[in-house]
């Protein structure tokens, strides 16, 4: 599987992501800079975590309008799978590739801790290695992860299997839902399930030293689907 990781000014989890992709695919992803207007031919485009443009104005807002994103949108519309993690998820909602928006955490604090996720739709190219309802642990680290969507959008997500993961009880002490997200939503797909955005960081749960390797299933599944 060939992949590309997009780096905006202020992105800071690109290395974590690169290593997770390497572990799963055995190949080094291409790094693409925000000013680039071309992306090499790849099977997967990844928007990693961080604070693109400082997350000033709104998380992901400025990154969503950078030159490289025009190409990302074009590829996504042509069916190339896109994965956005944390800041990457925020960027994807700002471009409209994913529905909804990510508001400030309900408690207004940054939150970094391990959470437990439940897989809500295992029949996608991203989640094929999981069973329906399977739970796994992964860290979160964000300030704006409070997923919001209006009632009608919410209904459509639910009806169409677009809710990818929900926060459930299990992880560290504290509430299961770390940010107040509507309906405990941690990640969503686009309508055709070729774009996935999620707040947690599966890439930081791929090495025994991370304290758990549950995140590998996600990456291994993607590699398997796209090989």
């Amino acid at each position: 599987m060939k992949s590309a990781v997009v780096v905006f000014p202020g992105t800071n989890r690109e290395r974590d992501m690169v290593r997770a992709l390497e572990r799963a695919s055995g190949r080094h992803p291409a790094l693409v800079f925000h000013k680039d207007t071309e992306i090499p031919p790849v099977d997967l485009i990844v928007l990693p975590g961080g604070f693109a443009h400082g997350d000033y104005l709104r998380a992901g807002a400025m990154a969503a309008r950078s030159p490289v994103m025009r190409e990302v949108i074009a590829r996504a519309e042509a069916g190339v799978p896109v994965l956005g993690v944390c800041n990457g998820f925020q960027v994807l909602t700002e471009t409209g590739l994913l529905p909804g928006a990510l508001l400030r955490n309900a408690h207004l604090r940054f939150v970094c801790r391990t959470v437990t996720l439940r897989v809500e739709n295992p029949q996608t190219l991203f989640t094929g290695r999981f069973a329906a309802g399977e739970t796994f642990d992964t860290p979160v680290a964000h300030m704006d992860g409070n997923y919001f969507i209006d009632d009608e959008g919410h209904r459509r997500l639910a009806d169409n299997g677009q809710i990818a993961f929900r926060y459930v009880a299990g992880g560290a002490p504290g509430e299961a839902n770390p940010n107040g997200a509507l309906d405990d939503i941690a990640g969503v797909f686009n309508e055709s399930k070729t774009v996935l955005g999620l707040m947690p960081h599966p890439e930081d749960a791929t090495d025994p030293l991370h304290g758990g390797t549950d995140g590998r299933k996600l990456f291994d599944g993607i590699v398997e689907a796209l090989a």
Partner: protein
Amino acid sequence: MKARVHVTLKPGVLDPQGKAIEHALDTLGFGGIEEVRQGKVIELTLAESDPQAARSKVEEMCRKLLANTVIENYAIDLEA
């Protein structure tokens, strides 16, 4: 010419900051507060001096960047 853009959350969108302020004001002993909403105000100083042209330019900025119309409304005030 100066433009002031107010960006506010649409009614019905949860406003964690507004909620927190409401709660804090309450804790500080301020009673009689029915609702608090927090928004952004963005002040732009423009070279443009024609109000009509300035407004349409700022409109475009709002649609393209300043507001996320999935969750936010915006309003523009111009000052000479």
